[in-house]
């Protein structure tokens, strides 16, 4: 009698798989003990463990493959998550001070800086771009772009995107202190927002969707999903749909997204390929991803200083650091630092304006990048 079915488990299990189990466990540890993006790192870690026990996204008949094909290859899961995110974002701070939008654009340099370095290091264009998009500091955007350009890198890129996002409070402050003078951090910003009418908050998501879809069609699905969620939120008359977006839809999508991403982290793709040997690229992706975060922050702060100079010291450069997206902790972090310097200096609303702008700019940048690279590759 053929018992290969029984021995299969041990037969295919390599030392590399064993190491991946440890890595998966480490991700779960970070999720639970350190609370690094638990809702994503926990499913990713568990999916990574399953991927190395014969249930990867590449195994025939693996249930995770079914979910991967239905949710990732169709791009549905990141979009569903964005519908929920959109239903949770309040754009009033940005609408009240539109110029904050500029800081959002500045916060995207990390994407391209990383792209440059990655290609200099010899990564082909599609991989370099996918690595660069970690600099969008936005999970769904990174996953959306990577799925189209270099799906085999989904694992390391998603892990980098989400774990570094949790490290913002550790990564940013030293850079902020290093690049700004105390004098600059003490700058107060007067907050006299224009009142925002209901018509504006409802029209905004539609306008953004149209503009962005025309300028960067590749970003259209992402921005459309984000803005759909936002209009469900602001319409007030479809509370049920808004609640569904913020609960059922995003919860289920997140669980399956995390599992599917983890299911791509097989030993041979993440760690050691019997043919090509150790997968150094994984380490390089993690390293370059960290760099992307730094460059984003630096560029944002420089632009903040520029605005401070241009406005004759009416802008606190710290808010430059929230253009990177990573909404909303980047915004809260800048406001916090200003408060540490001067307990009466409240720049939270400005920071949130720049931060939401960063969210938009990240999606746009990701779409632009996707469009250009698709045209070149």
């Amino acid at each position, binding site marked *: 009698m053929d018992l290969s079915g029984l021995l299969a488990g041990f037969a295919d299990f390599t030392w590399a798989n064993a190491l991946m189990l440890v890595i998966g466990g480490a991700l779960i540890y970070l999720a639970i003990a350190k609370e690094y993006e638990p809702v994503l790192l926990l499913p990713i870690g568990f999916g990574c463990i399953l991927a190395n026990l014969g249930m990867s996204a590449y195994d025939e008949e693996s249930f995770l493959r079914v979910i991967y094909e239905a949710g990732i290859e169709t791009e549905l899961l990141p979009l569903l998550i964005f519908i929920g995110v959109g239903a*949770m*974002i*309040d754009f009033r701070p*940005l*609408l*009240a001070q*539109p*110029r904050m*939008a*500029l800081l*959002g*654009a500045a916060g*995207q*340099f990390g*994407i*391209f*800086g990383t*792209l*440059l370095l990655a*290609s*200099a290091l*010899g990564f082909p*264009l599609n991989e*370099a771009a996918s690595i660069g998009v970690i600099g969008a500091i936005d999970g769904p955007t990174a996953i959306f772009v990577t799925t189209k350009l270099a799906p085999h890198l989904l694992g390391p890129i998603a892990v980098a995107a989400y774990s570094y996002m949790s490290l913002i409070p550790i990564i940013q402050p030293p850079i902020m202190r290093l690049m700004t003078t105390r004098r600059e951090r003490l700058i107060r910003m007067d907050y006299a927002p*224009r*009142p*925002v*009418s*209901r*018509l*504006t908050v409802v*029209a*905004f998501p539609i*306008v*953004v969707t149209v*503009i*962005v879809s025309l*300028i960067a069609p590749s970003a259209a699905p992402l921005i459309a999903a984000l803005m759909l969620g936002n209009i469900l*939120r*602001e319409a*007030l*008359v479809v*509370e*049920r749909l*808004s609640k569904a977006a*913020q609960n059922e839809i995003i919860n289920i999508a997140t669980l399956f997204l995390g599992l599917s991403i983890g299911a791509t982290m097989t030993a041979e793709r993440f760690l050691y390929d019997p043919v090509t040997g150790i997968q150094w690229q994984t380490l390089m992706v993690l390293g370059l991803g960290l760099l992307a975060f730094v460059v984003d922050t630096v560029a944002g702060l420089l632009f903040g200083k520029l605005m401070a100079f241009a406005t004759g010291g009416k802008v606190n450069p710290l808010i430059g650091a929230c253009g990177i997206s990573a909404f*909303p902790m980047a*915004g*809260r972090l800048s406001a916090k630092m200003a408060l540490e310097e001067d307990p009466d200096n409240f720049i*939270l*609303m400005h920071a*949130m304006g720049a931060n939401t702008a960063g969210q*938009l*700019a990240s999606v746009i*940048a990701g779409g*632009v*990048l996707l469009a*250009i*690279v698709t045209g*070149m590759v």
Partner: protein
Amino acid sequence: MSDTFIQSLQITALGMGLVFAAIILLWGLMAAMTALFRERDVAPSPPVPSLEGRGDGNEGKARAAAIAVATAIAAQRQPSAHPLPEPPTAIVSAWQLGMRTRQMSQKGNLGHRHR
């Protein structure tokens, strides 16, 4: 320099250019919108919790209460813009009525729970 790197340089120039172009365009549109769509009624923050400035449970609770009230108010405030003096529920389809109603009762409970 490698061919790929040169391409990357082109991408960077073009990419950041487009990003700034798009953002500046949005800036203009936002300015225009806030200017055009003048305040008849200031937008009430929607019943779903917004994301800024949340720290701990207490704050969370406070918010929740605020939301409950806001929701209740919004519920009255909502302009029934119908020619007939019909209650809004009368011009919605079967199951939507169901929805609306349950929402109301929920609001009811919320308001109640926090009052």
